[in-house]
């Protein structure tokens, strides 16, 4: 150690080493992106497998069929007869059906206000007490009255009712089964699961009159079709990008495709030929959905409570009848019934590229972490650079070359002459940069507050106004700062350093919770590392403040990648109405506890704003 350290200490001051960080940072970004693109290859992804032995998927014979088909048809007729009736009659009828099946129904009213709209309805549910259990654990079968697209979930609800009646006849259940018909697909499940865990804060959400034990698993049936379906579409993203345990998904996939021969699709990839491109596309769609973190089905609301849940959606026109879907659910429930412990064995962090291929967190996390690390590397480099004293006045034009102060250094019997400037470190003026970084991050609360609390009608106009203001704000802020205290080169470097440090830190933390969001925000913020003369390591004003040409290029890039412009671009690309999207985000925050807006306005937007100010000062 004693031998190594002087060498390392000498390396510390090596100018080549000081020039390295920006290249290293760029390399990290490059590797991060390439890494992501490599994931779909066979060498980097793995075949899925059932990790929890107790599940035994597809090992039981399924009996849902035969005369149950008539029961199902009868229930479907009842459900269809309720179309156009008022809500009260609907819930009365559903309760009656539960009673006739020998189950005791319970009802819960809920009402939410978000973005000026009211979301109200009622959940009807019944608990089938386990003949062989002690009511400490329960599994849930959910069918929403309307699905995510707002269509009547006619076959789904009828199937859930038929299954409730069918399950009642079996004596093998060791966990309670809760059959839940929610009023809609987003507010209803949230109200129910909140109330189940006594976490409902709003007085407009009623408490649950009947409860059972800890929820072990949830399966949602979504079948709005009136004809036989072709394949099952499994939806698995939870709120804030949290995912259900991979074992639940694998169980559903192996039962549907292995036992019953039903095709499986993920992330709306209706055609999947197992090519590299399609795997990548599935993965990226999964990442976008995870990054947005919004509710993607009734199952999403359960996942934050550490209840693993998936939605089975019937899609296409084909040869599979509803009874096959029923058998699939029956078999999944038999597997869940076998569980000895809560799902814990398999992965909670994964990216799926096909129903039976995945990458686990150990393989994919480095890409987001490398992106986050690239900001931290630049922050460290800028910090070191800011501590260097300015070089003496450029002497090339002078005839009398000013003599640099030299310092004789003896080390290990060798002597070297080093310019003194390399050895001294300047005191740093920290207060202004730290105060600015903290203040701008707090300002993020303003757009957050506005976009959460405005109503659906005013949201688009507010956003237009904000977009315009936002494009001018860096200039205004830069001029204000310049007017009161002109920034020194050191201030400039420190401000960029702290801004990048905070960004890198938030992104690294976010990557452990919501990988995709962290990666997207990180990639969209990459220009922030490279504005100004990031490849230089001098602290002269002309090497720190960008020249006009650089300035204009940087402004253009930053304006194109501003959070507001990105939101517009995303709406345009997906053909989504801007107001719809903002209203959904506000709904997510108020009802589901969605954090994506906080990340955008309190992490990304301040970093972008500081980047803009740095270019313009």
């Amino acid at each position, binding site marked *: *150690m*004693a031998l190594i*350290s*002087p060498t390392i*200490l000498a390396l510390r001051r090596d100018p080549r080493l000081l020039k390295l960080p920006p290249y290293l940072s760029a390399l990290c970004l490059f590797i991060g992106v390439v890494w992501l693109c490599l994931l779909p290859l066979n060498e980097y992804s793995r075949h899925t497998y059932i990790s929890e032995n107790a599940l035994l998927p597809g090992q039981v014979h399924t009996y849902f069929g035969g005369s149950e088909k008539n029961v199902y048809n009868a229930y479907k007729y009842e459900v269809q007869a309720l179309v156009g009736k008022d809500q009260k009659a609907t819930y009365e009828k559903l309760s009656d059906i539960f009673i006739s099946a020998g189950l005791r129904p319970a009802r819960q009213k809920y009402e939410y206000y978000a973005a000026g709209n009211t979301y109200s309805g009622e959940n009807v549910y019944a608990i089938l007490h386990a003949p062989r259990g002690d009511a400490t654990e329960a599994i849930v079968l959910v069918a929403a009255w309307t699905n995510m697209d707002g269509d009547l979930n006619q076959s789904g609800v009828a199937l859930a009712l038929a299954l409730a009646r069918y399950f009642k006849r079996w004596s093998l259940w060791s966990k309670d089964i809760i059959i839940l018909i929610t009023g809609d697909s987003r507010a209803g499940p949230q109200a129910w699961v909140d109330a189940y865990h006594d976490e409902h804060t709003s007085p407009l959400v009623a408490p649950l009159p009947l409860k059972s034990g800890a929820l072990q698993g949830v399966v949602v049936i979504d079948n709005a079709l009136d004809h036989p379906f072709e394949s099952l579409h499994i939806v698995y993203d939870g709120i804030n990008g*949290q995912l259900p345990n991979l074992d639940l998904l694998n169980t559903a996939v192996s039962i549907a495709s292995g036992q019953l021969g039903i095709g499986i699709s993920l992330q709306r990839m209706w055609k999947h030929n197992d090519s590299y491109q399609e795997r990548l596309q599935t993965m990226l769609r999964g990442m976008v959905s995870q990054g947005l973190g919004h509710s993607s089905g009734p199952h999403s609301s359960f996942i*934050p409570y*550490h209840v693993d849940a998936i939605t089975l959606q019937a899609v296409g026109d084909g040869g599979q009848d509803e009874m096959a879907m029923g058998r699939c659910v029956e078999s999944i429930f038999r597997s869940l019934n076998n569980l000895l412990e*809560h799902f*814990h064995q398999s992965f*909670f*962090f994964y990216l799926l590229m096909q129903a039976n291929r995945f990458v686990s967190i150990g393989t994919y996390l480095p890409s987001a972490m490398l992106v986050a690390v690239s900001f*931290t590397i630049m*922050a*460290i480099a800028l*910090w070191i650079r800011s501590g260097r004293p300015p070089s003496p006045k450029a002497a090339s034009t002078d005839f009398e070359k000013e003599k640099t102060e030299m310092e004789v250094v003896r080390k290990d019997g060798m002597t070297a002459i080093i310019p003194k400037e390399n*050895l*001294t*470190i300047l*005191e740093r003026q920290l207060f202004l940069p730290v105060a600015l970084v903290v203040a701008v991050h707090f300002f993020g609360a303003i757009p957050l507050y506005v976009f959460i609390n405005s109503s659906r009608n005013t949201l688009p106009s507010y956003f237009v106004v904000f977009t315009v203001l936002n494009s001018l704000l860096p200039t205004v802020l830069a001029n204000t700062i310049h007017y009161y205290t002109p920034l020194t080169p050191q201030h400039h470097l420190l401000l960029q350093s702290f801004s990048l*440090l*905070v960004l890198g*830190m*938030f992104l*690294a*933390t976010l990557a*452990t*919770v919501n990988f995709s969001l962290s990666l997207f925000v990180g990639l969209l913020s990459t220009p922030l590392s490279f504005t100004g003369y990031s490849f230089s390591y001098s602290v002269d004003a002309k090497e720190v403040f960008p020249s006009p040409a650089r300035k204009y290029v940087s402004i253009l890039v930053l304006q194109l990648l501003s959070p507001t412009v990105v939101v517009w671009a995303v709406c345009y690309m997906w053909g989504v109405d801007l107001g719809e999207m903002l209203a959904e985000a506000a709904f997510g925050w108020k009802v589901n506890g969605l954090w994506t807006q906080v990340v955008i306005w309190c992490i990304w937007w301040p970093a972008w704003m500081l980047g803009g100010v740095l270019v313009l000062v």
Partner: protein
Amino acid sequence: MVIDRRKAILFTSAAALRLVLFFTFPSLPVLLTGRVEISTPVTSFKRLQEGLFLYTHNVSPYDGGVFHQAPLLLPLFALIPPSLFSPLTAILYIGLDLLCANALMHITESGESGSSRLFTSPRKDMKWDSIAVASAYLFNPFTIATCIGRPTSVFTNCAILYAIAQAVSGKPITSMLALGLASYLSLYPALLLPPMILLCYDGKARETKALPNATFSTATYLSVFSASIAWFLHLSKILTGGSTAYLASTYGVHLLLPDLTPNVGLWWYFFIEMFDSFREFFLGVFWLHLGAYVGALCIRLRTQPLFVITTLLGIFAIFKPYPSISDTSLYLAMLPLYRHVFPLMRYTFFAMATILYATLLGPAFYYLWIYAGSGNANFFYAITLVWSLGLSEIVADSLFAVLRDEWEVERPEMKGKDVRQI
């Protein structure tokens, strides 16, 4: 009495900020009180309320193994009318924070950090004034979070700061009484006794301009300290109905670590993992480790006893049995007194970045472990290691800087040169 205008503005704004946080976000105190980073089993406000409930209902608060705090806190909180409990405790804790800041200002104004009796730093003019030091304490996010989370360690911190403030202004008796109170409340401040005696001695010597008798002074200080502790223990015995059962569930818990609730320290995970047969041995080793710094630092830094206390506070924040960010906030409150050695510190940025990283990742990993269920205990423990690493970087680096500062007085020709290990 003339009230300094800047001080008034600082104290008003700090109090206003805390009041706003307490009363406009009513869920914030509840949230922070439950955080393991703030509330440990021996300082938690929730447990204090539990103990208080039992105490006011004439049940021994130490039955049931929930309450591990000093008995004298109970009559103090019992004085607060239950109908106004939360607003009045908020005001009490804000008052305590301001008292701490006031003590810090006294310590700064004494100039003890720059020039003690035996050593004057060549850099002593490069310092922050008392307002800057106090605002660094009052607006430190850790201090604010601690204030809102209301752990009883704030009382200990306040007593320690008062002990130091009295010692540097040449009032050894009150200093020893304050240290006695701090030790009575949470035991570990007793380890500060040796450097505090040195500090009191130096303070007295400076006050009287003559060297007092060392043996006599030490004996006096020691006896005042012991007498104050004996008095507090006697009062506690009367309060708990004449039994000494409270000793086992207060100091016994500090010493034997029966409650392994996670916290930011290093002990809980270690003792969860350990086989029970080794428990006693490692308890001894851990306590010995904590105590070992006291003698060594007192001898090596005899000339700067205030810095010994500062460094020990940093070491306690890392290595004591139930540390929390309240201990860190106390250490970070003392550190700005050594503004003059900051330029000699080498890893400030890395240490600060490490601490910030740990501050963000700690709650995230705790969330993954406890709420999301997708992580496990190792996640949070790994971050407490990083946190401790960041703090020890600061402790070691500031120690290096102070030693270097001393060394440059002895060897002026080495100023500005690199040191290296031979």
